[in-house]
Structures are given as structure tokens and as C-alpha cells.
């Protein structure tokens, strides 16, 4: 973890992030290969092909758009970590935004980069540890966590999260927020196809629309 004096801190984050992410990619791809070798079982290539055709194009496209959209918000270290550990829009990004708000740090500054990476790293560690505990205690936990009485609470996690986070951010940038919030309300209320499984696709739409509106407001001197 020593830093060469010829590299800036952010350069070392990118260098280390590249090494980590490519290593993680190889490890993840190795899992099915090693299982196949150990159990002497070749995959059903037709199943792999059909499964990939039905699944990959949409998720590859969504992932590529997410990378473009989320990198400026997550920062360098946060991006490398988040795109390995997942749950970005429902956990890592809100966690980073909340940490930046509490620390009153500019996301584009080095301080912002550090705060964002610390928040996402801690969130990733806590998530991984809780899942490990969940797996170890799955037999006693299953009847508790699968209890129908608790289901509505976990079903409504995103509204509860974005109510609190949204009011904090929107109140500080209400001029920016009016048009995109109205657009999204109209789209989600009147197009039934837009639901929990399509909200990820609508995030880049919301971001692009907000950038266009804010550019117009900026040019007109309103913001």
C-alpha cells in the first residue's frame, strides 16, 4: 500500500482498483469452472447459450449505463468497490451520499473521494459480514426473517430510504428537482410497465433529463 512519489493518490486508487477488479472478475469466473472440474461435469452449453441470450443483453446494457452514471457520484475508490459488491442504487450510493452530506464534503474533492470510499468500504464489509452470519444462522433465522408479518417492512425499504434521503437533497436543490420529479411522477404513475424492475433503467433517464434542465436554468441565470 506504499505510494510511489511519481503517482498521485488518485492514480494509485485507479492502479489498485484495476488490479483488484480484474482479479475479482477472474475469481468469479473461476467458480463455475472449478465446480465443473471438481464434479467432472460439463455445463449444458445449450442452456448456457439460451440463458445468456435471454439475460445478458439487457443487463449488459443496463450495467454499462450504470457505470457511466454512477462513477461521478461514487468517486474512484467507491466505483471499484461498488461494481464488485453490488447493491449500488439501494445501498452503496445512498450510503456515500449520506456520508458526504454529513461530512459537508465536496464529492469532487480529495476529501469527498476519501469520505465516499470509507463509507462504501464499511458498508461492503458490514453487508458481507451480515450475510455470512445469515448463512451460518440460516436455520434459526429463516422462520424469523421469512415471517409474513415482517415482509411489508422489507418490501417498503426503498420508499423509506428515498423519503429521508430525498427530502434532505431536494430541499437543498429544489430548483433543480422540480422538473425531473414531476417528469418521473408522470411517467411512473401513467405507464404501468414502469415498476421496481425497471427503476434501474429510469435512473439514467432521470439523470440526463436533470442535466439538460439544469443546463437551461444555468444558462438563463436561474441557478
Amino acid at each position: 500500500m506504499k505510494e510511489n512519489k511519481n503517482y498521485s493518490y488518485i492514480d494509485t486508487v485507479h492502479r489498485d482498483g484495476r488490479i483488484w477488479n480484474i482479479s475479482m472478475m477472474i475469481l468469479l469466473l473461476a467458480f463455475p469452472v472449478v465446480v465443473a472440474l471438481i464434479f467432472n461435469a460439463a455445463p449444458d452449453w445449450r442452456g448456457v447459450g439460451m440463458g445468456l441470450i435471454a439475460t445478458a443483453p439487457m443487463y449488459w446494457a443496463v450495467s454499462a449505463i450504470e457505470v457511466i452514471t454512477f462513477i461521478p457520484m461514487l468517486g474512484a475508490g467507491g466505483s471499484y468497490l461498488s461494481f464488485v459488491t453490488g447493491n449500488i442504487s439501494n445501498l452503496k450510493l445512498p450510503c456515500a451520499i449520506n456520508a458526504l452530506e454529513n461530512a459537508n464534503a465536496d464529492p469532487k474533492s480529495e476529501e469527498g473521494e476519501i469520505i465516499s470510499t470509507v463509507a462504501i468500504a464499511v458498508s461492503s464489509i458490514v453487508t458481507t459480514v451480515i450475510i455470512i452470519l445469515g448463512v451460518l444462522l440460516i436455520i434459526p433465522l429463516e422462520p424469523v426473517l421469512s415471517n409474513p408479518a415482517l415482509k411489508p417492512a422489507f418490501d417498503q425499504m426503498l420508499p423509506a430510504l428515498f423519503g429521508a434521503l430525498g427530502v434532505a437533497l431536494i430541499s437543498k436543490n429544489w430548483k433543480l428537482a422540480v422538473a425531473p420529479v414531476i417528469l418521473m411522477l408522470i411517467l411512473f404513475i401513467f405507464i404501468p410497465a414502469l415498476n421496481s424492475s425497471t427503476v434501474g433503467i429510469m435512473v439514467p433517464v432521470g439523470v440526463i433529463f436533470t442535466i439538460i434542465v439544469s443546463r437551461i436554468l444555468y444558462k438563463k441565470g436561474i441557478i
Partner: protein
Amino acid sequence: MEFSTNHPILFALVAVIIAAVLAQSVYFLVKSVRRAKATGMDMKKIKKTVITAAIFTIAPAVSIVITVITLSQSLGIALPWLRLSVVGSLSYEAIAASNAASGMGTTLAALAEGMTASQYVTIATVMTISIMVGIWLVPVIAKRYQSGLISFEQKDAKWSGILQNSLFIGMISAFVGFVFCDVYRLWSSTDGVFEVVSKDPLTGENVTTLYSSTSGLVPVFVMVISAVAMCLCGLLIKKLKWKWVNDYALPICMVLGMALAIPLTAWLG
């Protein structure tokens, strides 16, 4: 060697990968904290960030455990443990596994009765490759992309700040819209009951679920409650100078909204 979806070797392989995931997170945490110290940052901020992030993560992480339990019914415990500890989600993993099963001419429900190693490898391959883009695309573009953003910022610092806020607001607006996505049930239902037909990823069959026409209001009320609670926290911080509330406001408001979702769902469907 006889295969089972809960074979100890599968747990050992997954444990190795999870250890690497943890190691990456610890590495970046230590690297950031060292940099914060070296640049003379206020370490109280770092400590607060660590505590707040840890507390905030608990409820979403428990919901991920529930997802592991759900998927373990058809795929065993090891594979959902791996997939949900790395990039993925319940909807994605269920769809990917279901598509792989249907590519083999079967369903997850049928495979839950007894899966061969070949079928397991097929499903794991599809689940892994279909969501792999982010992991390699970030290393490919992140540095150049960020350099471009920095040079852009130097040209017009004020617009750059507005652009950053626009990114956050754009994301929030999509989720605010999503909260209202089932409100249309109010005027689309007949006799106060709304039918939702969806494909069960386990069986591949269409399943009809009945909701009250007012059920779409539950997430709206939950969001409003959580937002009002956040405003109250803001008042406590400003009027009573309870600055400590700032660190815990988001998890407190989120858990309050989730808890009140239980009686709201019982009331509105």
C-alpha cells in the same frame, strides 16, 4: 464425487471468493484512512462516517439475507451466498437462474427437487457472465472518464458543481417516481380489488396476486413518513443543537418508515 447444492466443497469455494471481497473492501478502507491521516483530515469525520455507514447498512443487509433464504430454496445456500455478496439482486439472480433453467428445458422449481452438477454449473455460468460488465468496465474507463470530468470542472467550476448535484437529483427523482408506480391501481381496479399477473421465476408459470386498490398508496405514505421524520431530525439539529442526530438521522428515519409500513399494509392492502 456425489453432487449436492449444499456440498461442503461449494461452501469452501464461495468462502475463498467472499474472503477476497472482504479483503478488497478492507484494503480500500485502510488506504483511504491512511490518506486522510497523511493529508491532515479531521479524523472525527472519518470515525463518524464509519459509524454512520455501518448503522445505515444493517437494515438493507438483512433484506439481502432474506433474498439469500428465498433463493436457497431452489439453488442451495452456497450459490445465493456468493451471488448476493457480489454484484446482483434478487430480481436479477432469479431471472438469470430461471432463464438458464428454461434454456435447459426445465424450471427452477423442478431443479429444486434434485439438481445435477452440470445443471448447477450452467446456472452459475449464466448468473456470473450476465452481470459481469460493471466489474471490467470500471477499470477500463474510470480513470479517463474522471480525468475528463476534472478538466471539464477547471473550465467552469460553477457549472461543474451544479452538474454534480444534477446527478444526485436525477437519481433521487427516479426513485421518487418509482414510489408512485402502483398508485394507478386506485383507478384501474374493479370492486376495490386489483389483480397482478406475474411470472413465477421458480415454476415459470403465471401467478395471479390480488391487491386492494389502495395498496399503491402504502409506499407513498411510507416515503412521506420517512421524509417528515427527516425534517423533524433537521429541526432537532437546528433548534436544540442536537448535532449527534445528524449521524443517525437516515437510518432512524428509514427504520421508522419500514416499521410503520407493517400497520399501513394491514390497513391499505
